[in-house]
């Protein structure tokens, strides 16, 4: 029931702003943190657009998720400048620090989702990691793991020291 209310609200905004399927999915992802299958089915019926159109878009763009994402997102930039300064190693150690299995991007307790970005345009401070909305530059594996450890207390971010 609550789900339907939320979906209705999204659909109302969509109709009002004359949005596209992409903006509709972006709003859905913003509300739920991912794209629940029921949501896609519901929109498909209401708008009389086949579900395949929605999934076609959802799987084309890497910003959409078909499974629940974590409360916090940590993104490691893997563009060229970050790559030659060791982004792979950062990603590898971060994933192992969070005990992520092969193919998994989100921790079991849904506290973290790990992503890699192509290039975020902050090449001059490579390698770069983004925790939620905050960009951190000149990182190494140890510092990124430290960033994540800043959450240990009650799942809230307790800070990071610049050194």
């Amino acid at each position: 029931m609550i789900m339907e209310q939320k979906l209705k609200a999204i659909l109302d905004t969509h109709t009002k702003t004359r949005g596209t399927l992409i903006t509709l999915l972006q709003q859905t992802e913003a509300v739920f943190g991912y794209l629940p299958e029921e949501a896609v089915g519901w929109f498909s019926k209401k708008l009389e657009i086949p579900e395949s159109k929605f999934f076609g878009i959802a799987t084309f763009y890497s910003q959409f998720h078909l499974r629940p994402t974590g409360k916090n997102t940590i993104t490691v930039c893997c563009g060229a400048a970050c790559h030659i300064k060791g982004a792979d190693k950062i990603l590898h150690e971060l994933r192992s620090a969070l005990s992520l299995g092969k193919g998994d991007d989100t921790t079991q307790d849904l506290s973290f989702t790990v992503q890699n970005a192509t290039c975020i345009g902050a090449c001059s401070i490579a390698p770069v990691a983004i925790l939620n909305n905050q960009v951190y530059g000149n990182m190494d594996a140890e510092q990124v793991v430290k960033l994540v450890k800043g959450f240990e207390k009650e799942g809230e971010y307790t800070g990071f020291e610049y050194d």
Partner: protein
Amino acid sequence: MIEQQTVTIKVCLGTAGRASGGADVLSIFQKLIQLNGIEAQIDKKCSYTKVGCRGFCSKDVLVDVIINDQKVTYQSVKPTMVEKIVTEHILKGEPVADWLTKEDYESFQTKQHKIVLGPCGEIDPESIDDYLGMKGYRAAEKAISKMRRDEVIKKVIQSGLRGRGGSGFSTGTKWEICKSQADSTKYIICNVGEVNRPLAEGNPHAIIEGLLIGGYAIGSEKGFIYIRERYHLSVERLRLAITQAKDKGFIGRNIFGTDFCFDIEFSFGTEAFICGEETALMESIEGKRAMPRVRPPFPVQKGLWGKPTVINNAETFSNIPLIIGKGARWFSSIGTKESTGTKVFTLSGKVKNVGLVEIPMGMPFRDIVYGIGGGMESGVALKAVQVGGPSGGLIPASMLDMGLDYENLSKLGSIVGSGGMVVFNEDDCIVSITKFFMEFLQRESCGKCPPCRIGTKRMLELLTKITEGRAEYNDLATLERLSGLMKTSSLCGLGRTASNPFITGLNHFRDEYLAHVREKKCPAGVCTALITFSIVEDRCKGCTLCKKVCPAGAVSGEVKKPHRIDAAACIKCGACFKACKFKAIKKQ
């Protein structure tokens, strides 16, 4: 009574500035000065400004302290350093000499030619008054209220300005073709790519003004800013700039008292590299999968929702107010005959000074790397420079004296592309780099046309074979053939340029490819399948450090006796190689 003095503190709050703690630095300055009542004590008026990126990001947070027009710049300012700057410099008038910028900052800045980046780092990007103070929106007023549409276009054509994003098409000509279309509804789109972020964050009003002038010139009433949602700070500052411009009446109905109306809307891009391609970008705005369209018809004829559409990037638009304001002749006096003006690059990789740079077109690569960039970091020699993102060509050290402009880049098998410039040194493996770019392009290929979809996949497989020592000489010929096919038959620029790193790499670094293929060796020691680590017994002191750092437990040995590496257990991470203080680990 002493004359009233003024103190201005400018703190860099671009993406890099923020990442280095700039917001904390600014708030501590504010707190210390306000709480201690310093203003009253020193009888000086203090103001604080957040400014955009001034380029020298490797030394962020950069802070200017200006007392009565005497400006000094501090580098690498941490929140903990603020108190000392306030007490010694602002209170006692003695700058903290150790923390000031050094010669490298000077040479980094003076060797550039900043026209679009000029105001970034000087003005407050969140204040329209700052922009108006530097004659902001005067060019738009002049164009819209005093010039005919074709006069505006003629001026842009005369300036020689070419698109700063893709293939370098004449901006004015693009506008002219779009204007000449019969359809009365036209659109104009500003693409804000990753390299444009500092412009959007440092001087957003210039982009808005350029877009406004462009809209007027082609006869469009609707502009779009296409930007990734993830670029939060850029979005925030552009949004604020639009609101401020609307309040002043620069955007909306009857602009500058004329009958010209113009509105700007955001379109939030999704994460896909292909969206940099203009027809794919339009598909994305329309809410579809971003797959490029077949041309002709070109976007200027039939673009967004089938209407004539101009797409330029934020850097191109930032140049427009300058061309209208200062004149086409002024603009074309910068750069070379065919490539006028300047170009912004993010200089990154293995150079000393990394950051955002703006150079006059035609500047030799050598001057960029060794002049502005301050030379190579950690003394390892330069191997190649790559310009233009993942599908840019590799330019070898022997060709650094060529000037950077559209013509030379094309001759060198490269593109202006995204405006990234990465410097590689002798520790980087050309084959491995090429494979890395191909991995990226293969993943980002939209899948619409077979040459790109299948070609990038096959090329990646062959490059992987080379890095793993499984390749034969014939594989190089296959790669060359595939490159040619993709170049001539792909639907869009992604497929057509995807082979640039391979082709240029093979041309200039043939020996490195042959070493991988014939001798199964990686000269740079990067391709893990082709290297082995071993311990030189006479050098090993048995300090056990390598044993401690080895994550795979592959090192064995007793204290004070030579150690050994078990080749079967070694995962070739290189941890021992880095840790050893006696150079006893051999990498082959």
